[in-house]
């Protein structure tokens, strides 16, 4: 017997009182154990979708099921399955860090002793233990993000939804949060992530949906999506001073400075040919890197395609 999806959305629509149609009947499904990216430009409908799933926004039409539980039938049960990390800080800044976790556990009916055990475990795990008795307003931005993750996990949800969890977080902290999210995903928690850092989605997520103007414009596996990329741009750092004109047959090559080349490689082309041609011209390539995130290019193409 196949498992019920962690999240099923069918023909979900939302029109705000000012007539703005934020969602135009989107459908998607997230399987249990998945690490799923929900991408889209600002105002695309990501936060509205998440708001509907966790009850902060009332839907206009359609259906949402969390682990098979229809939110129109038993929203309280569906809510038990969901942990939400919102985009904006939404805790009482006068409350102490540990109290915020204990209070949230109480809202889910978790007995005090169990709540304390879990709160202490997450505070330690997420590097907040030393700040447990500090009012939350005294925490740094990264700590506040981690506090919201700990809060979302306190009732051990099956589905964790993170709305831009690493916004404003430094690179080191972002990497450690990625490791933590991978760890809990590895233990079976389904994760849905919205982010503006496409590199983050590429590094973490197995499946992806791109939403724009309230419609799903792409929904596939990350591998499939990336396979469809037509073109990549590589930056080659060369050992010698480059001549003013460098060319490689069948490739577009640009000299950006005395030691650097940009080469466009289209689907089906091979970099070996570039290296051979450069080598014949006496040019030695010392190192190579992507110019831009490939997913970002795909994202821009998809979004621009629907904007027309």
């Amino acid at each position: 017997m196949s498992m019920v999806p962690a999240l099923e959305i069918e023909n979900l629509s939302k029109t705000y009182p000012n007539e703005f149609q934020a969602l135009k009947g989107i459908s998607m499904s997230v399987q249990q154990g998945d690490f799923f990216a929900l991408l889209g430009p600002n105002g695309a409908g990501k936060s509205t979708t998440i708001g509907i799933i966790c009850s902060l926004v009332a839907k206009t039409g359609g259906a949402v099921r969390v682990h098979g539980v229809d939110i129109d039938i038993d929203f309280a049960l569906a809510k038990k399955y969901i942990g939400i990390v919102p985009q904006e800080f939404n805790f009482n800044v006068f409350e102490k860090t540990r109290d915020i976790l204990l209070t949230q556990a109480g809202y889910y009916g978790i007995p005090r002793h169990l709540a304390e055990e879990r709160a202490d475990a997450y505070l330690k795990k997420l590097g907040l233990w030393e700040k447990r008795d500090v009012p939350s307003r005294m925490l740094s931005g990264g700590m506040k993000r981690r506090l919201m993750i700990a809060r979302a996990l306190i009732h051990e949800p099956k589905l964790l939804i993170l709305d831009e969890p690493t916004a404003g977080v430094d690179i080191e902290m972002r990497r450690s949060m990625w490791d933590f999210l991978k760890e809990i995903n590895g233990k079976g928690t389904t994760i849905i992530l919205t982010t503006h850092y496409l590199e983050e989605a590429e590094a973490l997520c197995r499946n992806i949906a791109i939403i724009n103007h309230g419609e799903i414009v792409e929904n596939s596996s990350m591998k499939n999506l990336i396979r469809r990329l037509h073109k990549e741009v590589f930056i080659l750092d060369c050992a010698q001073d480059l001549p003013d004109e460098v060319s490689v047959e069948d490739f577009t090559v640009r000299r950006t400075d005395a030691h650097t080349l940009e080469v466009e490689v289209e689907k089906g082309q091979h970099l070996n040919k570039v290296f051979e041609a450069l080598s014949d011209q006496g040019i030695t390539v010392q190192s190579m890197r992507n110019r831009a995130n490939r997913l970002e290019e795909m994202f821009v193409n998809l979004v621009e395609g629907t904007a027309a």
Partner: protein
Amino acid sequence: MNWTEQYIAFMTILRKEIRRYTRIWTQTLLPSAITMSLYFVIFGTLVGSRIGEMGGFTYMQFVVPGLIMMAIVTNSYSNVVSSFFGSKFNNSIEELLVSPTPNYIILWGYIIGGVTRGLAVAVIVTCVALFFTHLSIHSFPVVIGIVTMTSVLFALAGFINAVFANSFDDISIVPTFVLTPLIYLGGVFYSLDLLPEFWRNVSQLNPLVYVVNAFRYGVLGVSDVSIEFAFGMIAFFTIIAYAYCMYLLNSGTRLRQ
């Protein structure tokens, strides 16, 4: 949620509310003690000694029940309006809204939080009053009943105010321009018998008249209005306010988009 989980959720909200107002006790508990002490000194001792008896009691004894009730009304109201609006303002109300806590538990958590503050201030003010006059209770059931019902009613009213408030200014408009005049004109400082007939009849429209007089009856055994009618009116308004609060929560008015 099963009953145990609902109980835990209720106690969590209540504990949070009590923690909030005790953490800022200089803003929540102390002002009433100071204000009431001033009332007792000025109206009870200084002015009251020149007024003489009212309703068969010294003026100080006459005003004490009204002043205690005034503290209960304002504190029950202010606690819920500031706490719930504060949660809306900093979006921490979302913590509750995304949880499976039923709406009636959310409401009762905030209401009983307001009631405990109202009662805490009532105890403080009563203790202060005992420095100025002797107090004995005429009817414990009436005192307990009226204090509880009044506290619940004004906590509900505070909740409604908080739901509709858009700014901190909005949560002070009702207490300043509605609640305080109604309290002052509700017979706290005078017997309705002193008023000309027209104003005495107008006063009957003021719900605070019933609250103050019912409490005064519980303490002193005298009232300007029928106790049964007073209880009936307070119960009626409490049921209406509760139903409206539940409607606001269930419909998500001003809480969910």
